[in-house]
């Protein structure tokens, strides 16, 4: 793995949001999100992006290296593994 991953805890026992620290920025990641519904918001002090594909959502600050992914599928562990494989691939290409 060429990123760091940590579970984001919240008030709910079923929380399935994970934070990833990547060697690339959110902006760089967005270039790989073809097929995703990507939205950028430049109004905020630090502009943000969000990307949705089916029930999967990625969020982050465009110029930062940390993203959050919320896994909602029933087989969410598979979804997470698949996503992390894809992230590895993206990072390898970009680096």
């Amino acid at each position, binding site marked *: 793995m060429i990123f760091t991953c940590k579970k984001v805890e*919240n*008030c*709910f026992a079923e929380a399935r949001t994970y934070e990833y620290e990547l060697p690339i920025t959110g902006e760089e990641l967005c270039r790989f999100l073809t097929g995703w519904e990507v939205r950028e*918001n430049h*109004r*905020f*002090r*630090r*502009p*943000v992006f*969000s990307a949705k594909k089916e029930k999967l959502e990625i*969020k*982050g*600050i465009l110029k*930062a290296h940390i993203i*959050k992914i919320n896994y909602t599928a029933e087989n969410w562990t598979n979804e997470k593994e698949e996503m992390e494989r894809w992230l590895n691939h993206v990072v390898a290409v970009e680096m």
Partner: protein
Amino acid sequence: MNSSESYIYMNNAATSWPKPSIVAEAMAKAVGALPGAANRGGIQDFDVFSEVRKELAEVMGISCPEQIALGSNSTWGLNQGIFGYPLKAGDTVLTTTAEHNAVLRPLYRLEENGVKIHKVSVDKTGRVQPEMWKRALKQYRPQLCVLIHASNVTGAVNDAAFLTKLAKEYGADMLLDVSQTLGCIPVELESWGVDLAAFTGHKYLLGPQGTGGLYVRPGLELRPYIIGGTGVMSDLKDMPLNMPLHLEAGTGNEPSYHGLLAALKWNREHPMEAEVLYKRVCQLSDGLQRLGCRVIIPEGVITPVVSFVVPGIPSADVSDILMDSYDIICRVGLHCAPEIMEDLEMPDGTIRLSLSRFTTSEEVEQVLGAVQDIVESGV
């Protein structure tokens, strides 16, 4: 991380920040100093725990400082109070839906042992209505009542004096949770007739984490929940009966209590300007309302807490943007008080902004500006 100076800290209901600089100085000095004598000091030995008790007694409105047992936090105090109170299977505890999990979870444990638990609902601002409290007292005839003094979700302060008086009329003892109020609004445990009160040092008293405990009315004997060494009377097989030793097993957190002592003295020398703080809270809640947020605004006495939601935008998204895009530290979710959300009609929780005496009007404006950006962009 950005430097702490760039942040706007609005999570004081969780823990206060900043704290007076003398708190850290006192703690650092204590860590390097010769340790205390663990209950064996002579006249000339400085006993930080006794000094803290004296200062706390002033703030709590009690005349017997030795009735304050010092531990690690409010949760410690609540556990000592709830599990130490002489309840047996079939007895009843009356509480409210506004309680923190530090109360609810110990009560659920008691329920497993046959103690009956009844919860009085609160109004849409998180406050206990006396007529509902009275009705429940009459119906359930509890041995013990456990009541949050101020909701950590909405800031609504309960009329502890009157609700305690009602509890007494029906023969119940009162355990009051003053975690959110001590150091923020007047607390008068003795004149209110409160039997037990759990408190923390790290919120509005401005002390460090790792401090807090339980006041026990003279004459009320608890069965210690945590037992162990006391440094004295080591030849006894059980905890000494005299307070505070009765409830204080193990080595105390001396450095943190030096910090709390410094904070208590600082508070005495720098009384909080409650009107200024109230003005800031109104500035924030009025501003949020103007932006179209759904804000919980309790009438009457409050702590500096503002809970709200932005219609149409998940609260977690709002708090993420406040934190990540604007360096505004707030809290989102159930705030460890899951039962109150139904009464507030906010099942998914709230975004909570909690101010302190150090919050400036400019900071409030910056927060409102950030929320305005979020509302207008629709995220």
